[in-house]
């Protein structure tokens, strides 16, 4: 690189427009190859037809989109949105408390605590979900302990229901909420809080009138990071829900595997993306912030 440096700088001085191109290039390429290209392929598949035994025929049609208005799809969409919303709210409540504690009371161990938040990502989520199965099963650790202590006569049905799915969702996506919240709480100017206190605000007022509004950006971005993957989640309802609590991820997967209709599956997937984008736009408008992705103000 070193010998190239001089001519490169010279070139950029003569053609300043190229600076932007070179700086943005890698990111744009990344977006093109890893986001737009796969979406394009999916969009193409979604207008193809299905042949016998699940083969794909390259005849263009919009039939797949006509089939999308299925009442079962709408019902499962409703359930997915409801569970994703609940997950987001629960993550926000518990995540805010945790992030607040780390940012204000973490002391010199702040780094360690925020590191612990992301530690679970070092293991496969599959392994972590199986750990939950071991904990929650009828004859799992929690029920066994409670029955041995005589608290319970019969095991509690902790696994294979909507509650277990919700628990799995909150558990899996909590770090996505904690990290942006921590970043915005960490950068919150402590002088502002002191000023509010000096001017007579009670601790509760300080929190609700200063801290909360100033960390809105972190809350918004955390909420988006939790909500979006929760809506399409496949693995958690499959493992912790016993395949009984169907969410959209499974619904779409069944179009590919059960019906062996890849074009229809692709159409459903695109419709889901469109719905989520629409909801996000609405949400950001209503949230009154165009800076949702800035961790702090």
């Amino acid at each position, binding site marked *: 690189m070193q010998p190239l440096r001089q001519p490169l700088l010279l070139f950029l001085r003569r053609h300043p427009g190229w600076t932007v191109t070179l700086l943005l290039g890698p990111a744009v390429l990344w977006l093109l190859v890893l986001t737009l290209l796969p979406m394009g392929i999916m969009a193409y598949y979604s207008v193809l037809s299905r042949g016998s035994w699940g083969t794909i025929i390259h005849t263009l049609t919009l039939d797949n989109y006509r089939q999308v208005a299925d009442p079962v799809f709408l019902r499962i969409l409703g359930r997915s949105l409801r569970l994703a919303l609940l997950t987001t709210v629960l993550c926000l409540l518990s995540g805010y408390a945790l992030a607040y504690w780390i940012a204000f009371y973490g002391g010199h161990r702040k780094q360690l605590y925020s590191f612990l938040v992301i530690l679970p990502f070092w293991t496969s989520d599959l392994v972590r979900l199986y750990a939950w199965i071991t904990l929650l099963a009828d*004859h799992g650790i929690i029920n066994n302990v409670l029955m041995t202590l005589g608290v319970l006569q019969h095991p509690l049905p902790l696994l294979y229901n909507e509650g277990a799915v919700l628990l799995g969702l909150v558990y899996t996506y909590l770090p996505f909420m904690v990290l942006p919240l921590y970043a915005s709480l960490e950068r919150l100017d402590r002088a502002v809080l002191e000023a509010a206190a000096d001017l007579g605000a009670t601790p509760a007022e300080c929190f609700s009138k200063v801290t909360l509004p100033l960390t809105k950006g972190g809350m918004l971005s955390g909420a988006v990071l939790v909500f979006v993957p929760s809506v399409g989640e496949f693995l958690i309802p499959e493992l912790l829900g016993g395949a009984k609590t169907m969410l959209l991820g*499974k619904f779409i997967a*069944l179009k590919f595997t059960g019906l062996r209709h890849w074009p229809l599956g692709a159409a459903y997937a695109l419709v889901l993306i469109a719905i989520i984008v629409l909801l996000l736009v609405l949400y950001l408008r209503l949230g009154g912030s165009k800076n949702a992705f800035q961790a702090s103000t």
Partner: protein
Amino acid sequence: MDRPTRTQLDIWTEALWQERLTRRDFVRRGITLGVASSLLAEIVGLYTRQVAAETGPAPQALERIKKEGKKLFVYNWEDYVHPNTIPRFEKEFGVKVTYDTFPSNEQLLAKLQAGGAKYDVIFPTHYFLPIYLAQGLLAPLDHANLPHLHNVFAKFRNTPFDPGNTYTMPYGWGMTGLAHNATYTKDDPRLGSWALVFESVAQRYSGKLGFTDEREEVMAAALQYLGHHPNTRTKDTLRQAGEILLRLKPHVKAFYPGAEMKKALITEDVVVAQSWNGEAVKARAKNPAVMWSVPQEGGTGWFDTMAIPKGAPHKFTAEVFINYMLRPEVAADNSNTNGYATANQVAVEKYIDPQVASNPAVYPPAEALARVTFLEPIPDDLLPLYEDIWTRILGA
């Protein structure tokens, strides 16, 4: 009764039952031939094994394996081979095997259809083969590399699903029937009938009821309970079966993928279940209260095959591996531990552990086998109905 007209499959499966070596035959043959002959077979077996070990694989074969990079990617069902099967193959042929497992036919098919996953050997079930062949996903096999096919029962060779075994080699077969835990089900008059599953609603086994997550098999169980043929193509009958399952769903613990059923049976999270025989057999080894039988209304049967995906990077090595799996000793080892019957006739006659061979849940007697119907592929025009019913059941 809406029994469909006899298909090629029916004729084939009937032939299977009639020809099969029954347990009684097995015992009788054992007595007439006496201990001496089995000893002799054992000595011959030992001798041939020793010869094989001494001479080892042909140098030309090793040369071709080397050319392919001494690697092999195998994609199999969970818990389906003896723990020594893969290490022994690696040692004998100097190949590094990467061994992954899948829980369902759907997952195997989807992975292959998506491309990119370069597996060399896969294990699809018979009723999925028409899809693989229609989509051109399998590579034709070179029979010159697969001499051990002769060890397989004639009825598992040259089946209507793959005439001439152009693409697949037989591996093993199993049944889907009724598993239950005797501690919980004793003195239940419905024992031995699908009624144990379908009429237990809100009674003894609510919330302790398990199902496989294979759509075809779950539907078949409901159809058999209602007295219909599991391969029925009558739409109203299928909808009726769907209704029964939908009503039962609130009492179902879970639809267990693959080997998960075994764990649930062991821990007694599930005490009555529609289960593959092998999972119940393996569970019984850990929890003796677990029982399995073919219900009086009938169960379903399937056989798994070994195949090579088109474009597999190590095709010759894959054929060497499949041929190795067709060795009677290897097939017997696998069947002795996986809880399922092998398709290998020589293995059944000579090498299977007598305790496994006499286990009616693995090698069932003729009268139980007569109640087993082999599943047929769902025709394309009925697939949307099946899918709709299944989505409604899981999505309810």
